[in-house]
């Protein structure tokens, strides 16, 4: 970019370095608009990465506060069936016409710090103890809706797989490209379930078929749909939104 007499205006290499820098600063550039600059008059462009780092540090502090506030005994409020929101709002990182069908030969893979690294079919999951809940799904955007989910308590599932319950995280990978992760304490909460049913019927693809996480003690984006793999790990796994700057703990 600095050579003065280059013939080609933009070469792919130039773009690559620009794009790399843009992605490194992506979080920051989106955090600073005119409103941001108005609050930061006096900061010039060179200090912006410092603001970015400060925001991230505060988010990590918030995560520690949230973990301290969290109690495994405290249950999310439950509601009568009459309170269920109808129609239920579809939500994903893509529009509903991009919902994918369950892949052939689908199985739920379990990896990481578990005793049995086996794969589970839907009927095997259905054979495990089931729990049902009518709880409020609260989106990070602020809206909320009440729905009914039933399935295997994640705690029961983790015990059946011989998971190391002293590991720090449980990570979820989905066949639609989505991913997320939660802390072990929240994974063992009695209302955290691997849902197989929504509204008393087997999950349809747009509601997370064939199995989804349902965790009413966290914001909606943590309740990953269309699962294909669960990993028990102590290495921070991040997630689709978390890597872009959503607060990781995301407790409610």
């Amino acid at each position, binding site marked *: 970019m600095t050579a003065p007499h280059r013939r080609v205006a933009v070469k792919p290499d130039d773009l690559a370095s620009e794009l790399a820098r843009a992605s490194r600063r992506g*979080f920051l*550039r*989106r*955090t*600073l*608009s*005119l*409103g*941001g600059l*108005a*609050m930061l008059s006096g900061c010039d462009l060179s200090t912006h990465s410092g603001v970015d780092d*400060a*925001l*991230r540090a*505060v*988010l990590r*502090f*918030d995560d520690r506060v*949230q973990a301290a*506030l*969290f*109690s495994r005994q*405290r*249950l*999310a*409020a439950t509601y009568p069936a009459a309170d269920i929101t109808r129609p239920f709002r579809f939500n994903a990182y893509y529009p509903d016409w991009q919902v994918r069908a369950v892949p052939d030969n689908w199985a739920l893979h379990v990896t990481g710090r578990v005793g049995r690294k086996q794969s589970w079919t839907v009927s095997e999951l259905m054979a495990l103890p089931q729990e049902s809940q009518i709880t*409020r799904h*609260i*989106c*990070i*955007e*602020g*809206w*909320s809706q009440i729905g009914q989910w039933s399935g295997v308590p994640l705690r029961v599932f983790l015990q059946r797989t011989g998971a190391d319950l002293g590991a720090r995280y449980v990570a979820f990978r989905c066949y639609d490209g989505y991913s997320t992760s939660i802390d072990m304490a929240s994974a063992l909460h009695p209302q955290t379930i691997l849902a197989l049913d929504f509204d008393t019927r087997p999950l349809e693809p747009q509601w997370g078929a064939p199995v989804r996480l349902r965790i*009413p*003690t966290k914001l909606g984006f943590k309740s990953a749909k269309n699962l294909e793999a669960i990993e028990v790990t102590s290495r921070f796994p991040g997630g689709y*939104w978390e890597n*872009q*700057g*959503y*607060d990781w703990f995301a*407790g*409610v």
Partner: protein
Amino acid sequence: MRRSPRSTRPAHPVPLRLMHWIGVYAMGCMMFSGWTIYNASPSLPFVFPHWTALGGWLGGALAWHLGAMWLLMLDGLAYIVYGLATGHFRRHLRLSSPPDFARDLGAALRFRLAHRLGHYNAVQRTLYAGVVAVVVLQVLAGLAIWKPVQLQWLVDLFGQYPVARHIHLALMLAIASFVVVHVSLVAIHPRTLKSMLASVPMESEEQP
């Protein structure tokens, strides 16, 4: 207009001026990032203009909102402790009697209300005490919608989660209205701005 006799006490002590401006910054961050968060899923038929948006996108705005909230809460707690401990609340924010309030409000609306630095008239007392109460309620409503499960008792004070969310929005509008009135009055009496920035002596209680 005669000059008021000068006293040596500043109209606003240094801690108050400091807490005022930290509060302005924290509240500004909260309000502008809050508007960006609201815009992610507007619950009423309007959105806030994008040029006011702090944080740029929902994730960035939440980072600002959940960061500035600590500054606002620390500043607010310091102010409340200071106000109670030094007698600032008792001396300056105690609500006046309704007849006094009616008299001062009438004078204010006719632009005839005298303003003496360091002394609050009945309208100011009501506005300042009111906005302090509203900000306290606003922080509680905000905590309720941040932690509706862990702080369920707080949500119950406001009703259900969606109700608390609307109360949070309504209280924001109340604070924004206060800011409009407050800044307009400062524009009419610019020396009050100077007294909140620098050490300007308190004016006599006597009518100038």
